[in-house]
C-alpha cells in the first residue's frame, strides 16, 4: 500500500512488533488447543458430569411380585396401606419452609408437630434420628398408618397441604392362607445396605436406597424377578436444587409373580402335624436317658415323586414372617436369632443335617447288590455281630435267622448289613487297603449324598459322606485335641474314643464301615436329600433337583416362564433291583417296622412304601426318621431328639397322606375329602389383566380373625377342594414351641449303632 519511507520507524521497532504479533497469536493458539482438548477430547466425560450436576432422580418403587401356591393362593403378597408423604422440594419453596403445613398435618395425623418436622429433616453428622437419609427429592414418608379419614382430609384440602400426598402404597404381607405359615420357605425382606447398592450398581437390576431385598427363602432366591424395576422420574434442577424441568423418565415395572408347587392346604397340615408329632414326642419317656424326649427340632418334606416339586416343606421351631414387615423390632430379632431362640429362621428341611439311621439302608442294599451280593440270597440276621471282640447288636437284640435283603429292609435287620459291610471292608484290604472299591461309599455319592440337591432355595447344606478322604482330613484337623485327651488315661467312654481316634482315626476301621452301613456314625443327611432319594426310588431312579418355584409369571400375565423339573442324576441300580427295593419298602409298610403305623391303609389302591430310621447321636437322644413314598408323593419327616422313626413321625406322616388322598384310618377313601389325590400339574388360571386366579381355601378356625383378605370372599367351598370337615388337631399350631436350647447339629462322634 505504502511505499513511502517510513519515518519514525526503526528496524528495532519493526522486529519487536513482529515479536508481539507472534506472542499474541501463540496465546490464541494455546486457547484453541485447550478448547479442543476440553470439548472434543474429553467432551464425553464432561457431558456426564454436567448430567450428574443437574439431574435429580425421584424413585417410585415397583410393586413386589406375589408368591403364590400351586392353586394361585397368595402366600406372600402386598397389602395397601395409606402412606402420607411430604415433598421436601415443595416445602422448601414456601416462605416458612413448610412449617405451617407440617404443623397442620401433625394435627390431622394426631402426631406431635416436632416429630413430623424431625421426619422431614435431612440426616447429617449432627442430626440425630429420626431424620431422612434418602434423597431430598424423594417424597418422605411421614406415616404408613394413616386412616382413610385422615387421607381424605388431606386430599380434599389440598390447598392447605401443598407438597403433601396421601397415597395407598403396597406393603409386604405374608397372608398365611389356610393356617399355613411357610415361613422358612418364603423367607423375608429387609432394607438394602450401602454395600449391596454399590455392588449392584452396574448390574442388570441396580438397587435403590428405598429398596427392600429378599434375605432368605424364595424372597431371596427369586429376588430379582419379584422386585421388578423401580420407576424413576428425573428432574432437571438448577444450582440451588430448584426444579426447572423434567427429563427422560422411566415408569415403574412391577415385579413378576412366582407360582410355587406348594399347596397351602397341605402345607398347613404338614406344619400342624409336625408340630403335633413333636408335642406328642415330648410326652414320651426315652428309655435310654430316662427323661422325656426333647423333640427340639423337626422338619417334613412333601415332594412330588415324579418331578421333585415341593408340595409342602415345614420346619419347626418356626416364626411369623410378618415380624419382618415394616422393620423388625429389636426384641423380635433377638427372639429369632438369639442364643436361646433355637434358631427358628433355619429351614431344617434343607439346613438341618443328621445321621440318617436305617433310612440309609436302601443305599447299603443297593451298594451290596452292586458289589455282587444277590438281593434274593439269604443272609443271617443274627441277634448280634462281633468283630475283633467288639459286639454290634441288632435292634433289641432280635434275630430273624437267614433272610434275603428285602426282608432285611422290612425288619430293618442291622446284622445283615454289618456282615455285608464287614466282608466288603475286608475285601477292600481291611486296615491296609489296596485300591479299595468302597462300594458302600461310592453308592452313597451316587445317591447324591454329600452334595446339594440343587433346590431353588438359598443356603442348602451338603451333608456328609464319611469316606476315606473325609476321614483323613477330619483326623488331620482333630488329631491334636484327640491325642491330648487320649493321653490323660481317661477311662471314660469319651476318653477311650479319643485315644482310639488319635491312634487310628485316619484309617477306615472295620467298626466305622459297619456302623456306616446302617446309617450311623459320621454320615450327615438333610431331610430334603432323603426325600430326593426316596422319590427317585419311586419314580424309577431319577434324582430330581427339588423345586419350589413352578413358574414365573410376568405382571401382565403375558409371559409365563415355567420352571421345569431338572434331573441331576440317576440312581445306580437296574430295573430289577429297583423293583426289589420297591417291594421291600412296601413290605415295611405292610408287615415291617412301619406296619403298625399304616394299619388299614388302602394298600391296593395306593401302594405305600416306607422306611423307618432311628439315628443315634452322641450325647443326645435319638433322631427319628421316617421316609415314605407312594406313586405320586414322597414324604420324609425327621424329629431331632424325637425317639424312633415310626414312633415319633409315623402318625404325622400317615395323617398327611390321609389328607392328600382323602383316606381315613380305616382305609376308606373319600374323594371329596382328598386335598390333592394327584399332583397339581397345571398352573393356576391367569386372567386377562394378569392377575392369577386363586382357588378357594378354607380358613382354619384358629386363625380366623387374621383372615380378612381377598381370598376370604371366594371361600365358599366348591366341592372337592376343601377339607372343611377336618378338625385342626391343635389350635395353637402357629405358636412357637418351648423347645430346649440346642441346635440340630449332631455330634459327629456317634456311638455304635442300633436300630428298631
Amino acid at each position: 500500500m505504502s511505499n513511502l519511507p517510513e519515518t519514525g520507524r526503526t528496524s528495532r521497532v519493526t522486529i519487536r512488533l513482529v515479536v508481539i504479533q507472534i506472542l499474541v497469536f501463540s496465546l490464541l493458539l494455546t486457547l484453541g488447543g485447550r478448547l479442543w482438548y476440553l470439548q472434543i477430547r474429553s467432551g464425553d466425560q464432561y457431558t456426564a458430569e454436567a448430567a450428574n450436576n443437574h439431574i435429580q432422580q425421584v424413585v417410585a418403587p415397583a410393586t413386589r411380585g406375589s408368591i403364590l401356591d400351586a392353586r394361585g393362593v397368595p402366600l406372600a403378597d402386598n397389602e395397601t396401606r395409606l402412606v402420607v408423604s411430604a415433598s421436601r422440594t415443595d416445602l422448601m419453596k414456601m416462605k416458612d419452609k413448610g412449617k405451617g403445613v407440617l404443623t397442620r398435618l401433625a394435627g390431622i395425623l394426631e402426631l406431635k408437630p416436632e416429630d413430623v418436622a424431625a421426619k422431614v429433616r435431612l440426616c447429617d453428622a449432627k442430626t440425630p434420628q429420626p431424620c431422612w437419609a434418602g434423597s431430598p427429592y424423594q417424597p418422605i414418608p411421614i406415616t404408613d398408618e394413616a386412616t382413610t379419614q385422615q387421607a381424605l382430609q388431606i386430599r380434599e384440602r389440598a390447598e392447605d397441604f401443598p407438597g403433601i400426598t396421601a397415597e395407598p402404597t403396597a406393603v409386604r404381607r405374608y397372608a398365611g392362607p389356610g393356617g399355613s405359615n411357610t415361613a422358612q420357605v418364603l423367607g423375608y425382606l429387609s432394607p438394602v445396605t450401602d454395600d449391596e447398592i454399590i455392588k449392584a450398581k452396574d448390574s442388570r437390576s441396580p438397587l435403590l436406597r428405598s429398596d427392600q431385598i429378599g434375605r432368605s427363602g424364595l424372597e431371596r432366591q427369586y429376588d430379582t424377578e419379584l422386585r421388578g424395576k423401580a420407576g424413576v422420574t428425573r428432574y432437571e434442577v438448577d444450582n440451588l436444587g430448584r426444579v426447572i424441568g423434567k427429563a427422560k423418565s422411566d415408569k415403574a415395572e412391577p415385579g413378576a409373580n412366582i407360582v410355587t408347587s406348594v399347596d397351602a392346604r397341605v402345607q398347613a397340615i404338614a406344619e400342624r402335624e409336625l408340630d403335633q408329632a413333636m408335642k406328642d414326642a415330648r410326652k414320651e419317656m426315652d428309655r435310654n436317658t430316662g427323661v422325656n424326649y426333647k423333640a427340639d427340632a423337626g422338619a417334613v418334606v412333601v415332594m412330588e415323586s415324579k418331578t421333585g416339586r415341593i408340595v409342602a416343606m415345614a420346619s419347626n421351631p418356626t416364626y411369623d414372617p410378618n415380624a419382618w414387615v415394616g422393620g423388625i423390632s429389636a426384641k423380635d430379632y433377638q427372639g429369632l436369632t438369639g442364643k436361646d431362640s433355637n434358631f427358628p429362621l433355619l429351614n431344617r428341611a434343607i439346613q438341618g443335617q443328621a445321621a440318617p439311621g436305617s433310612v440309609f439302608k436302601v443305599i447299603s442294599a443297593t451298594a451290596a447288590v452292586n458289589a455282587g451280593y444277590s438281593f434274593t440270597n439269604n443272609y443271617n440276621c443274627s441277634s448280634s455281630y462281633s468283630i475283633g471282640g467288639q459286639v454290634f447288636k441288632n435292634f433289641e437284640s432280635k434275630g430273624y435267622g437267614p433272610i434275603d435283603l428285602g426282608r432285611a429292609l422290612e425288619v430293618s435287620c442291622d446284622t445283615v448289613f454289618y456282615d455285608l459291610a464287614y466282608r466288603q471292608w475286608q475285601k477292600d484290604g481291611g486296615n491296609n487297603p489296596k485300591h479299595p472299591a468302597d462300594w458302600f461309599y461310592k453308592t452313597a455319592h451316587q445317591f447324591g449324598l454329600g452334595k446339594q440337591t440343587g433346590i431353588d432355595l438359598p443356603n442348602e447344606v451338603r451333608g456328609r459322606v464319611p469316606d476315606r478322604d473325609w476321614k483323613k482330613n477330619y483326623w488331620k484337623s482333630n488329631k491334636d485335641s484327640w491325642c491330648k485327651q487320649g493321653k490323660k488315661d481317661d477311662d471314660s467312654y469319651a476318653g477311650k474314643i479319643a485315644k482310639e481316634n488319635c491312634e487310628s482315626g485316619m484309617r477306615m476301621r472295620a467298626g466305622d464301615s459297619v456302623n456306616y452301613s446302617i446309617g450311623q456314625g459320621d454320615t450327615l443327611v438333610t431331610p430334603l436329600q432323603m426325600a430326593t432319594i426316596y422319590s427317585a426310588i419311586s419314580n424309577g431312579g431319577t434324582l430330581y433337583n427339588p423345586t419350589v418355584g413352578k413358574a414365573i409369571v410376568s405382571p401382565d400375565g403375558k409371559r409365563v416362564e415355567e420352571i421345569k423339573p431338572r434331573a441331576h442324576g440317576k440312581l445306580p441300580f437296574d430295573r430289577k433291583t429297583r423293583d426289589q427295593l420297591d417291594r421291600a419298602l412296601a413290605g415295611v409298610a405292610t408287615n415291617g417296622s412301619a406296619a403298625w403305623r399304616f394299619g388299614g391303609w388302602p394298600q391296593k389302591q395306593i401302594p405305600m412304601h416306607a422306611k423307618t430310621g432311628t439315628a443315634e447321636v452322641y450325647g443326645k437322644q435319638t433322631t427319628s426318621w421316617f421316609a415314605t413314598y407312594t406313586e405320586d408323593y414322597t414324604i420324609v419327616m425327621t424329629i431331632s431328639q424325637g425317639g424312633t422313626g415310626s414312633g415319633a413321625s409315623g402318625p404325622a406322616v400317615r395323617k398327611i397322606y390321609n389328607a392328600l388322598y382323602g383316606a381315613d384310618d380305616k382305609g376308606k377313601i373319600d374323594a371329596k375329602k382328598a386335598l390333592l389325590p394327584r399332583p397339581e400339574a397345571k398352573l393356576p388360571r391367569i386372567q386377562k389383566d394378569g392377575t392369577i386366579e386363586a382357588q378357594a381355601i378354607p380358613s382354619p378356625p384358629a386363625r380366623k380373625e387374621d383372615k380378612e383378605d381377598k381370598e376370604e370372599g371366594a371361600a365358599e367351598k366348591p366341592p372337592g377342594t376343601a377339607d372343611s370337615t377336618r378338625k385342626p388337631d391343635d389350635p395353637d399350631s402357629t405358636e412357637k414351641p418351648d423347645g430346649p436350647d440346642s441346635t440340630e447339629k449332631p455330634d459327629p462322634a456317634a456311638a455304635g449303632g442300633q436300630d428298631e
Partner: protein
Amino acid sequence: MTTTDGYKVRRYSPERGTWGKLTARDSVLRRLDWVMLLAALALSGISTLLVYSATRGRTELNHGDPYYFLLRNILNTGIGLALAVGAVWLGHRALRGAVPILYGISVLLTAAVLTPLGATINGARSWIQLGGGFSIQPSEFTKITITLGMAMLLAAKVDAGDRLHPDHRTVMEALGLAALPIVIILLMPDLGSVMVLVVIVLAVLLSSGASNRWIAGLLGTGVIGCVLIWQLGVLDEYQINRFAAFANPALDPAGVGYNTNQARIAIGSGGLTGSGLFRGSQTTGQFVPEQQTDFIFTVAGEELGFLGAGLIIVLLGVVLWRACRIARETTELYGTVVAAGIIAWFAFQSFENIGMTLGIMPVTGLPLPFVSYGGSSMFAAWIAVGLLQSIKVQRPVSA
C-alpha cells in the same frame, strides 16, 4: 485513471456534501478497517445472545425481566460504538493534546474508588456507583489513558525526529506516569487489572523502541514485584484461594474450586456443536457464577460448542491481526505505540479470561473484551477500536 477537470474541481471543493464526503474514494469511511470493525461487531452480537442466555433465568439479578441484561448490553454496545465514532472523529492525534487531561481524570476516578464513593464487588473495590443501577469501573479506562499517556511521552521526541529511540529520561517519566494508577489499582486490590496494565506497559515500552535494558529491568521488577506481593500479604484471602484452586482444581470443589470446576464442566459438555443456544443445562441451571460477565465464555462453550467458542477466539484473532497490521503500517511512532498497547491489552485480557474458564489460568476478575457484559469494559474496548481506526485513517496516505 483518466479524470475530467470538473471532477477534479469537485473533489477538492470544500462545499462537498456530507454524503459525498463519506463516499469519496479517500473518505474516512472507505479508509476504515472494516474487517476489524465487522469482527468486533460480530463479537458484540454474540455477546448479546450469550448475555441473554446467561441472565434470562437469573431472577435474582434481572429484576424479573428476562430482557434486562439483553437490552442493557445492546445499549452498552451502542454507546461503545458512539464512543468509537467519536474517537475516530476526533482522531488520536487530536486526542494527543488532551491526554494529560484524560490521564488526570482517570487517575482521579481511580483514586475515588478508594474513597467512600467506591463499591466493592466480589472482594475487589473497583467500582464507582453512579446511582440508577449504573456504575463505572475506572480501571477499564485507565488501560486507555496509560497507553495514550505513555505513547505521548515516548513518541514525542522520536516523532519530532530528535531521536531514533526514546531516551532513558523519557522512559522513566513514562514509567512514572504508569506507576501511579497501577499502585492505586493494586490497593483496591484489583490484581487482574494490574496484570493487564503491566503487560500494556511492557508492550508499550517494547514497541517504542526503548532500550533492551529497560525491558529486561522491567521484567525483573515484575518478578520481584510478584514475590513481594505474595510475601507482604497485599493479597486478600480470596485471591490466594483462587491461585490455590488454580494450582489444584480438585481442591474443595464445593468452595474455592467450584467456579473453575463448573466452568470446565460447562465448556467440556459442549462438545463439537454445543447443546444449542438457551439449551445448556449448566447455563440454565446457573451452575457457573458470574456467567454473564467474567465467565461468559462458558455459555459459548456449552451452548455453541467448539465451533461457536472457537469462532469467538477466531474473531478476537481477526481483531488482533488487523490491529497488528495497523501497528506495523502506521508511519508515526505514536500510533504504533498506542496500537501495540491496545494489542497487548486485548490479547492478554482475552487469554487470561478464556484461559481461566478453560482452567489454564488462575481466576481473576477480568472481562472478555467485546463479549462480557459490563458497560465500562465495553466502552473501553470500543474506544480502543476507535483509536485503532483513527490511527489507520489518519495515516499519511499516498496521493
